[in-house]
C-alpha cells in the first residue's frame, strides 16, 4: 500500500516528517519497504525558452536560450517539441535525475548548461505518462512562475511510504484507515470526509431492478447518475492517484479509484444505458463465458460470483468488469455499484483471473459502513468533477449486521497476558487514541470497536492493540519460573553424526525433492512414489525414497569441480506411499570415493571393505555387534552385482551396500544406506560387563586354499560350529591370490583363539580341537590346508 502524505493529510495532521512517520508506523506493526519523495530529482527550476535556433552541426538538436529567473542559460535540446516562448522544466548543472547527474557540457561544439526535461526523465513510472510526456519535453502552463520549483507547481511534491501490511489489516488499505492509525500514534483526531450532494426528484426504481440471488453477496448498493461529462480529472485527483500507484484515465474512472483509495471500498461503474433494466448477483454457471474489460474471453466456474443484467452475465464481481457495459468516452448515464462479496470466493477467483487493487480489498474483508460511505463519496465527487446529476433513491440489498462490536475485558487480563503492569488510565487512553469508546466497570472495561476494524473480534485482539500502541518493545523480558523437568531429546542422530565425523566423513544437506525417475533407483523395494501436484520444476517433482541419488548428485557436482576424495554422508528422510498411507523413514546414506587414508607416498583408495568397515562401526556403535550379516541377494541394478550386498539383522533387510555399477558410473564409487527407522525397531541389549577369563588363551593360525567364490563368512560359520564354546574368537587375517595356488583359487588365513573361563587349556586338547576344525573345513568346503 502506497501512502501519499498529501492525500492522508486531508484527514489527519501529521506532526513529524515522513521518515519518522514510517518508523513510528513500523513500531505499531505496519512495516514499510521504502519511503521518500515521489520525485527525487532536485535542482530543477521553471524556465522560459527565449530563443530556439537549430544547432549548426545537427539536423535535430536545438540551441536554446532559457530564462531561469536568476540567469539566462544556453541549453542544447534534442526534443522535437521545443520552441520559443515555451515554459519548461530546467535541470540545472548539478541536478540529479534518475538517468544521472546533469553537468555543463559541450554538445557538438556548442556549450550546454543544463537540460530541458520531459516528465519521463523526472523519475515518474512510465505507466503514469502519456507517450508525448515520455518523448517530448514537458510544457508547463503560462501561469508557471519562472525560477520556481516545477515539481511543486505540478503538484508532484509529495512523499510516499510504501507499506508492507499484514494480511489482517484490510482497514489500512484506505486513506481513512491510515488516518485513524496515524491518529492512534499522535493522538490527533481524524477529520470528516465530504459526502454532500444534491439529488433530482426522479428515482432509480423507475430505471432499474436489483436481484441478489446468492448469499455470497451480503450487501449490494446501486445508484444512478445522469449526464456525466467525461474529461480529464482535476490535477489533485491525478496527482494522488499517481502517488498511490494508479494510472489516471478520465474523471469518472479516476473517481471510482479515488474513492476506493480513500475508503477502501472498491466501486464499479456501469454504463447505465447499456446495462438495461436489471442488475443482479448470482453464482456463475460452470463453464459459462464472459468477455472481460481486457478483452479476454474467460471461462467461469460455479465458485465465481457474477453480475448479470436482463440478457447476460456482465461482470466478474469484485474482480473485473465486462466489456459489454463498460463506461466509455460517450457514456452519459452511470450506475454505481458499491457492494461486499464473499472474501474467500473473491480470493479464489482472483487467483485464477487477476489480483487487483479491488480484489485485494474484497479478500481482506470490508466494513459495511464504508460501503455506504463510498457510495455517497462517489456521488459527491461525480457531481463536483463530472457534472453528474444524482438520481434519487438507492437500490439496496442487505443481509448483514452493521454494528460496532462490544468486547468486555478485565484490566488484569491485559496485564497478565502482556506481562506488564499498566494503570487503568493508560489503558483507557490507548483505547481512546484508537477511536474505540470505553465504559469502565471497575475491574472490567466494555470496549466498543468501530466496524472499520474488521480484524478485532476477541479479547486477545484488544490486548494486542494495547500492547502495540503502548509499545510492545517496552515489555521487559522475564525469566520464567517453570517446574524442573528433563527435556526429552533423542540424540541418536547427532551421535551417529559425531561417529562418522570422526571416521573422516563429511555431512551433506540435500533436497528431499528430486526427479521422479530417480526415486526408484538404488532399491528393489516395492512402494508407491509420492509425486507433487504442483512442482516448481520437473527436476524436483517427487519425494525421494533413497538418499543415494541425492549423494550421487553431490558426487557429480564435486567431481565436475575437480574435488577429489569425496567421502560424505547424510541423515535424512526417505518418503513413500503404501496402502494409501504416507511413510517417512529416517535413513543414513554414505558415499565414498577417492582416497580414505593419505600419508607420504602411501595412500589408501576407498574400496568395498573400507565402506563396509564404516558401516560395521556404525552398527556396532548402535549395539548390533555380531548380529548383522552381509548377503549377496536382491542387489539393485544400479549396483555392481559382484561387489554389493544387502545388510540383514534378524531377517530384516536394514540396508544396502555396494559399488556403483559401471553402467551407472565409470568412477569407483561406493555407497551404503541404512534404514534407521527399521533399525530403531530392532531391540539391542544393554551394555554390560562380561567376565574376562583369568586363564591364558591359546591362539592358533591356519590357512586354507579355497575356490575363489567361497565366502569367508561360510568358512567362519563352519569353524565356529565345530570349535564349540572353547573357541572364543575367529578372525580372517589374510587373503592371498596367486596363480601358483591353482586356477580360480585363493588362500584365506584365520586366527583362532581358544579359552576356558575355569582353567588353563592344555596344548594337547587344543590341538585335538584345532585338527577337528581343520578337517571339518577341508571336508565341507573342498579346502586344502596350506602349509608354509
Amino acid at each position, binding site marked *: 500500500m502506497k501512502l501519499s502524505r498529501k492525500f492522508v493529510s486531508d484527514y489527519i495532521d501529521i506532526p513529524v516528517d515522513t521518515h519518522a512517520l514510517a518508523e513510528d508506523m513500523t*513500531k505499531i*506493526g505496519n*512495516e514499510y519497504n521504502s519511503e521518500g519523495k515521489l520525485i527525487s530529482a532536485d535542482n530543477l527550476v521553471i524556465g522560459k525558452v527565449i530563443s530556439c535556433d537549430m544547432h549548426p552541426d545537427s539536423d535535430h538538436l536545438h540551441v536554446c536560450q532559457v530564462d531561469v529567473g536568476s540567469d539566462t542559460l544556453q541549453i542544447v535540446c534534442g526534443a522535437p517539441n521545443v520552441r520559443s516562448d515555451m515554459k519548461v522544466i530546467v535541470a540545472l548543472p548539478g541536478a540529479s535525475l534518475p538517468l544521472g547527474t546533469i553537468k555543463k557540457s559541450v554538445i557538438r561544439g556548442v556549450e550546454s548548461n543544463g537540460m530541458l526535461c520531459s516528465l519521463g526523465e523526472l523519475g515518474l513510472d512510465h505507466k503514469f505518462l502519456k507517450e508525448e510526456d515520455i518523448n517530448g519535453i514537458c510544457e508547463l502552463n503560462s501561469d508557471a512562475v519562472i525560477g520556481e520549483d516545477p515539481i511543486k507547481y505540478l503538484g508532484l511534491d509529495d512523499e510516499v511510504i510504501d507499506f508492507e501490511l499484514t*494480511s489482517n489489516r484490510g482497514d489500512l488499505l484506505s486513506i481513512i484507515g491510515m488516518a485513524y492509525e496515524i491518529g492512534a500514534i499522535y493522538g490527533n483526531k481524524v477529520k470528516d470526509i465530504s459526502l454532500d450532494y444534491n439529488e433530482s426528484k426522479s428515482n432509480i426504481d423507475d430505471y432499474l431492478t436489483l436481484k441478489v440471488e446468492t448469499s455470497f453477496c451480503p450487501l449490494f448498493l446501486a445508484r444512478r447518475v445522469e449526464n456525466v461529462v467525461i474529461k480529464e480529472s482535476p490535477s489533485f485527483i491525478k496527482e494522488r492517484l499517481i502517488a498511490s500507484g494508479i494510472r489516471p484515465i478520465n474523471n469518472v474512472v479516476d473517481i471510482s479509484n479515488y474513492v476506493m483509495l480513500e475508503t477502501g471500498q472498491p466501486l464499479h461503474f456501469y454504463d447505465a444505458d447499456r446495462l438495461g433494466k436489471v442488475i443482479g448477483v448470482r453464482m456463475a454457471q460452470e463453464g459459462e463465458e464472459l468477455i472481460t474489460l481486457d478483452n479476454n474471453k474467460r471461462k467461469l466456474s460455479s465458485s465465481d460470483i457474477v453480475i448479470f443484467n436482463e440478457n447476460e452475465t456482465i461482470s466478474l464481481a469484485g474482480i473485473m468488469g465486462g466489456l459489454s457495459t463498460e463506461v466509455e468516452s460517450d457514456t452519459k448515464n452511470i450506475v454505481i455499484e458499491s457492494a461486499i462479496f464473499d*472474501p*474467500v470466493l473473491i*480470493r479464489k477467483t482472483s487467483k485464477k483471473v487477476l489480483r487487483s487493487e479491488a480484489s485485494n480489498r474484497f479478500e481482506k474483508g470490508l466494513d459495511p459502513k464504508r460501503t455506504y460511505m463510498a457510495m455517497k463519496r462517489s456521488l459527491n465527487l461525480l457531481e463536483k468533477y463530472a457534472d453528474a446529476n444524482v438520481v434519487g433513491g438507492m437500490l439496496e440489498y442487505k443481509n448483514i449486521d452493521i454494528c460496532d462490536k462490544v468486547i468486555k475485558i478485565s484490566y488484569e487480563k491485559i496485564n*497478565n*497476558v*502482556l*506481562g506488564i503492569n499498566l494503570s487503568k488510565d493508560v489503558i483507557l487512553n490507548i483505547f481512546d487514541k484508537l477511536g474505540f469508546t470505553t465504559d469502565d466497570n471497575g475491574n472490567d472495561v466494555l470496549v466498543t470497536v468501530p466496524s472499520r476494524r474488521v480484524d478485532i473480534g*476477541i479479547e486477545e485482539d484488544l*490486548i*494486542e492493540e494495547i*500492547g*502495540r500502541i503502548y509499545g*510492545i*518493545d517496552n*515489555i521487559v*523480558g*522475564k*525469566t*520464567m519460573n*517453570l*517446574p524442573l*523437568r528433563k*527435556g*526429552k*531429546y*533423542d540424540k541418536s542422530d*547427532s551421535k551417529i553424526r*559425531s561417529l*562418522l*565425523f570422526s*571416521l573422516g566423513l*563429511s*555431512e*551433506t*544437506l*540435500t533436497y*528431499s525433492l528430486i526427479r521422479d525417475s530417480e526415486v526408484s533407483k538404488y532399491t528393489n523395494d516395492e512402494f508407491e512414489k*509420492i509425486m*507433487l*501436484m504442483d*512442482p*516448481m520444476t520437473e527436476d*524436483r517433482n517427487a*519425494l525421494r525414497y533413497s538418499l543415494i541419488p541425492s549423494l550421487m548428485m*553431490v558426487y557429480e*557436482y564435486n567431481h565436475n569441480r575437480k*574435488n577429489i*576424495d569425496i567421502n*560424505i554422508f547424510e541423515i535424512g*528422510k526417505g518418503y513413500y506411499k503404501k496402502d494409501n498411507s504416507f511413510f*517417512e523413514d529416517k535413513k543414513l546414506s554414505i558415499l565414498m570415493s577417492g*582416497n*580414505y*587414508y*593419505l*600419508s607420504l607416498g602411501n595412500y589408501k583408495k576407498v574400496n568395498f571393505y573400507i565402506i563396509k568397515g564404516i558401516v560395521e562401526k556404525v552398527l556396532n556403535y548402535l549395539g548390533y555387534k555380531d548380529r548383522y550379516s552381509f548377503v549377496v541377494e536382491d542387489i539393485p541394478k544400479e549396483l555392481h552385482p559382484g561387489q554389493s550386498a544387502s545388510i540383514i539383522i534378524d531377517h530384516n533387510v536394514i540396508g544396502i551396500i555396494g559399488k556403483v555399477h559401471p553402467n551407472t558410473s565409470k568412477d569407483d564409487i561406493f555407497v551404503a544406506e541404512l534404514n534407521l527407522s527399521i533399525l530403531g525397531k530392532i531391540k539391542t541389549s544393554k551394555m554390560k560387563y562380561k567376565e574376562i577369563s583369568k586363564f591364558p588363551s591359546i591362539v592358533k593360525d591356519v590357512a586354507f586354499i579355497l575356490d575363489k567364490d567361497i565366502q569367508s563368512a561360510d568358512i567362519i560359520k563352519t569353524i565356529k560350529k565345530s570349535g564349540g564354546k572353547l573357541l572364543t574368537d575367529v578372525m580372517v587375517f589374510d587373503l592371498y591370490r596367486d596363480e601358483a595356488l591353482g586356477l580360480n583359487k585363493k588362500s584365506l588365513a584365520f586366527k583362532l583363539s581358544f579359552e576356558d573361563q575355569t582353567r588353563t587349556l592344555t596344548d594337547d586338547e587344543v590341538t585335538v580341537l584345532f585338527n577337528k576344525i581343520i578337517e571339518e573345513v577341508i571336508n565341507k568346503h573342498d579346502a586344502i590346508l596350506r602349509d608354509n
Partner: protein
Amino acid sequence: MNIEEIKKNIEEDISSVISLNVLNEIKTKYLGKNGVITSLQLRIKEIPAEEKKEYGIMLNDIKGFFNDLFEKTRTKLLEEEVNRKLKDDAIDITLPGEGIISGSIHPFSRIIEEISDLFASMGYDVVDGNEIETDEYCFKRLNVPDGHPARDAQDTFYIDEEFLLRSQTSTQQAHAMEDNSEKTPIRIICPGKVYRRDEDATHSHQFGQVEGLVIDKNVSLADLKGTLEIFAKKLLGENTKVRFRPSYFPFTEPSVEVDLSCFKCGGKGCNLCKQTGFIEVLGAGMVHPNVLKMGGYDPDVYTGFAFGTGLDRLAMFKYNIPDIRYLYTNDIRMLKQFDRKGEE
C-alpha cells in the same frame, strides 16, 4: 707386588676402551679365572700369616679401584651408545602426520544441535514431526481456514487434495496439544525441514525452521521475551539484544516480529542490518485462543507462547555464509570448513 704399578696398568687398559665388549675383555683380564687380580688372590695361601692381613687390605684396594673404574666407564659407554642411537633415530618432525581424511558436520545440523541442547536443558522436549502433513494440521488447526489471506505468504506444495509438504514447523503445535491427552503444560521445540514454492538468493524451496511452544498457566509475552533473550544470547553472543515489533500471524494473538541486535556490528549499523542495527529473525506471539481450543486446552485456564525461526538464516549468521544456496550445494571445500567440535 707393586700396587701402584698394577693400578697404573688398570688405568691404562680401561682409559683406551671404546666399546663394551673390550671393556668386558678387560674385566676378564683382571677378574677372570686367570686374571691378574684373581691370581693375586690365589697367592694369599703362600703369604706368611703375619703379612696376610696387610696383603688382604692391599688386594681389596686394587679390586675396589678396578670396580670403580669399570662401572664408571661402563656407564659412560652405555650413555654414549644410547645417545648415538637417539641421534640415529631422529626424524623430520615437520613432515605431515599420517592422516585419515578429516570429517565435518554440516552447519545446518550444528545449529539444530545447539538449539536443541539449549532448550532440552531448559526442560523442553525436542520433537521431530512428519514432513508430510495434512492441510488440517498445517493450516486449519492453526487458525488459517480455507481462503484465508495468510495462506498467500506460504505457497505450499500439495501431494493431493488433503496432503502437503509442511510449509512451517508450527504444525507440531497442533500435534503436541492433541497428543497430550492429559492436557498438562507443554514445553517443546520442533526443529526440522519445511518446504515452500519459492526460490531465489534468499529463499530455498526447502529450508529449516524451529518452532517453540510453551503452554502453562499465566504465561505472558514478557516470559516469551525472557526466553528468547536466553536463546539469542546463547546463539549469537552475550551482548545480543531482543526487540519486539507488533505483527500478525493467524495462530498467535498478540503477535510479534522479533529482531535481534546485529551480531556483525553489535547494533551500530552495517550492511548486513541495512544500517538499522537489528535483524529480523523470529516470528512469535501468544497462542491464539482458537488454536488452544482446537488443541483441547481451555483458553480461560491456559495461555501459551509460540515462536518460530529459520534455521538456515541462523546458520548463515552464525557462520558468516553469504548465500542460502551454499548450504545445499555441498561443495566439499565448503563442507570441510566445518570440522571442529561444536559449541557447548
